[in-house]
């Protein structure tokens, strides 16, 4: 990938900045060849990779090196794009929002600093992957479970900072954050919460500290580079029980979401169940060409025929209970009673006891996996995917119209519908996957158009997304439009106060510093 310079920076000025970075991290860890730039682009880019082109990457090994890089970036006016491990696949990977930014790859900062088994937390650096943390837990026979998302290759810290989620009772990963160390845009270093006390012993057990609490300021934000995080973890359960069924009709999602929401609010279920449509399973085990020779998506009747043959139903329901067996059995009876009001379909019950294997295709048993990424192979060629993820109230009057509207849009734009709902009490997060072949320009064009129209439809209905790919960070920010985008104006006021040179992650989540504000929608 050819070099795209940061806006307003000449080639000699850029080289001077790279030389300064080399003096901090060593020659080996300034990655600025054409081949390196390619590896920091978006591997699933919906379009040309240079649309969000990195100019280089720099990989510090310590908080002190991060501070030095930030100070040099201010001096040389170089925009930085920090990533924990750069595996935010479907949202842009390691690629920056502003072309010409230098990626700060924190992958070398991969120390597990502490795991407290008694109080259930770990303290880790951003380069620690879910696989790394699992290896540490296994090696040291620590009876704690982490919560894993669909991509175990990614960073535990990075995923929590982008509000990722998993499938256990600790599935709201941002909520597990307790205490951070952060390098501010001027190079200063802070510790949040109780960590603001020198020698604090309660940094990672109490979230709020004294006075305003700042952790959320650094989530999905460009206000600092997080170099260390305390994350709460779940005590390993002694047993678990999975209740599984496959309701047959698309319309079933209405009562499913409402029933699970009420069970969740009453504490009968303590995970946030993930309800994908059966196409999610199909996309992992097959490709479009296996079912359909013609152009366009697999016809609905052919999909229905396949689901019937494989006894898949329309939705895949898996409710997992954790803890003492007598308690999970009692909870299971309450769940069965609630479901019996809507269906005579029985649950398939799958018990698990501590010491039993934990298969990698079931992330609700907290084993890291990358298997869900196989969906990107559905369309063939150089596969990729995007995630469109509006947040809805967990009621049928919200969920059903959203389901029908999105399903029709998928057909209109030539894709198979792949929606899912994650029910976490009051909300249903509606993650919709769009898979495309990057070598098929028309399919990529349609994928982008579909994303646009889904965003507009959801906005008109009163919903917004919880997370977005680089290409839609501004468009989604536009939908948060109360009082002429007052929230964005506040975000940008804070941005300019903390980062007057605008060097840190310009454009992240639609917040642009004054220095680069003209690049909004660019």
């Amino acid at each position, binding site marked *: 990938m050819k070099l795209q310079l940061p806006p307003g920076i000449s080639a000699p000025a850029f080289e001077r900045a790279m030389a300064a970075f080399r003096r901090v991290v060593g020659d080996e860890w300034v990655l600025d060849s054409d081949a390196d730039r390619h590896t920091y682009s978006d*591997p699933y880019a919906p379009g040309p990779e240079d649309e969000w082109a990195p100019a280089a990457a720099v990989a510090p090994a310590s908080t002190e090196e991060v501070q030095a890089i930030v100070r040099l970036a201010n001096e040389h006016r170089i925009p930085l794009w920090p990533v924990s491990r750069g595996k935010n696949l479907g949202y842009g990977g390691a690629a920056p929002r502003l072309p010409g930014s230098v990626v700060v*790859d924190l992958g070398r900062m991969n120390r597990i600093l502490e795991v407290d088994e008694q109080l259930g937390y770990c303290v880790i650096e951003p380069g620690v992957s879910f696989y790394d943390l699992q290896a540490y837990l296994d090696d040291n026979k620590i009876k704690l479970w982490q919560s894993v998302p669909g991509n*175990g290759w990614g960073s535990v810290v990075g995923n929590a900072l982008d509000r990722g989620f998993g499938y256990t009772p600790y599935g709201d990963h941002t909520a597990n954050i307790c205490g951070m160390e952060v390098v501010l845009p001027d190079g200063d270093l802070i510790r949040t919460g109780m960590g603001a006390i020198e020698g604090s012993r309660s940094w990672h057990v109490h979230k709020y500290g004294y006075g305003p609490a700042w952790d959320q300021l650094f989530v999905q934000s460009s206000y600092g580079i997080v170099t260390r995080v305390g994350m709460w973890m779940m005590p390993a359960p002694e047993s678990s029980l999975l209740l599984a069924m496959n309701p047959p009709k698309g319309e079933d999602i209405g009562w499913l979401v409402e029933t699970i929401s009420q069970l969740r609010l009453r504490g009968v279920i303590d995970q946030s169940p993930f309800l994908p449509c059966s196409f999610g399973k199909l996309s992992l085990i097959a490709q479009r*060409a296996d079912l359909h020779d013609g152009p366009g998506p697999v016809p609905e009747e052919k999909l229905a025929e396949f689901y019937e043959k494989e006894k898949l139903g329309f939705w895949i329901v898996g409710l997992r209970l954790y803890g003492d067996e007598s308690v999970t059995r009692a909870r299971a009876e309450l769940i069965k009673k609630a479901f019996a009001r809507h269906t005579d379909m029985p649950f398939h019950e799958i018990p698990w006891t501590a010491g039993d294997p934990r*298969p990698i295709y079931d992330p609700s048993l907290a*084993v890291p996996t*990358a298997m869900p990424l196989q969906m990107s192979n559905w369309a063939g*060629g*150089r596969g990729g995917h995007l995630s469109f993820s509006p947040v809805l109230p967990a009621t049928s009057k919200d969920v059903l119209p959203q389901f029908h509207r999105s399903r029709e849009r998928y057909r209109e734009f030539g894709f198979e519908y792949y929606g899912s709902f994650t029910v976490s009490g009051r909300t249903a997060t509606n993650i919709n996957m769009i898979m495309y072949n990057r070598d098929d320009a028309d399919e990529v064009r349609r994928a982008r158009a579909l994303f646009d129209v889904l965003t507009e439809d959801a906005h008109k209905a009163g919903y917004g997304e919880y997370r977005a790919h680089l290409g839609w960070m501004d468009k989604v920010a536009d939908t948060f439009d109360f009082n002429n985008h007052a929230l964005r104006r506040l975000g940008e006021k804070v941005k300019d106060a903390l980062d007057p040179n605008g060097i840190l992650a310009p454009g992240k989540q639609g917040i642009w510093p004054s220095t680069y504000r003209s690049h909004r929608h660019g």
Partner: protein
Amino acid sequence: MAEPRYALVFSVALALSGLAAAADPAASGGNGEALFAARCGACHFEEGMGSNVLAKRLGPERALLAQRDDLNAEYVRLVVRRGMGMMPFLTRVDVPDAELEAITGWLTRQR
């Protein structure tokens, strides 16, 4: 039309559960086999995403890279740094050049 290979994907996957614990390259002297396990194994051991995709594309007998005798060093380097199909590329922080050479040497040992 090819038949989807359900069995490979949905058979119970035990192989990976203990993988990471056994895959610390430093503990194993940084050799190619241990590095392959640590850097590539999550996807390219049995039941991993990469193995599942390769099984579909090339057949189960060529799905596991560790058992292949037809891999070429330059090809391995290219796939790692450029990606292939839906496999993302890996940076020099993910797999430094020296580690990639050790991995490539081990993967092509049977040639």
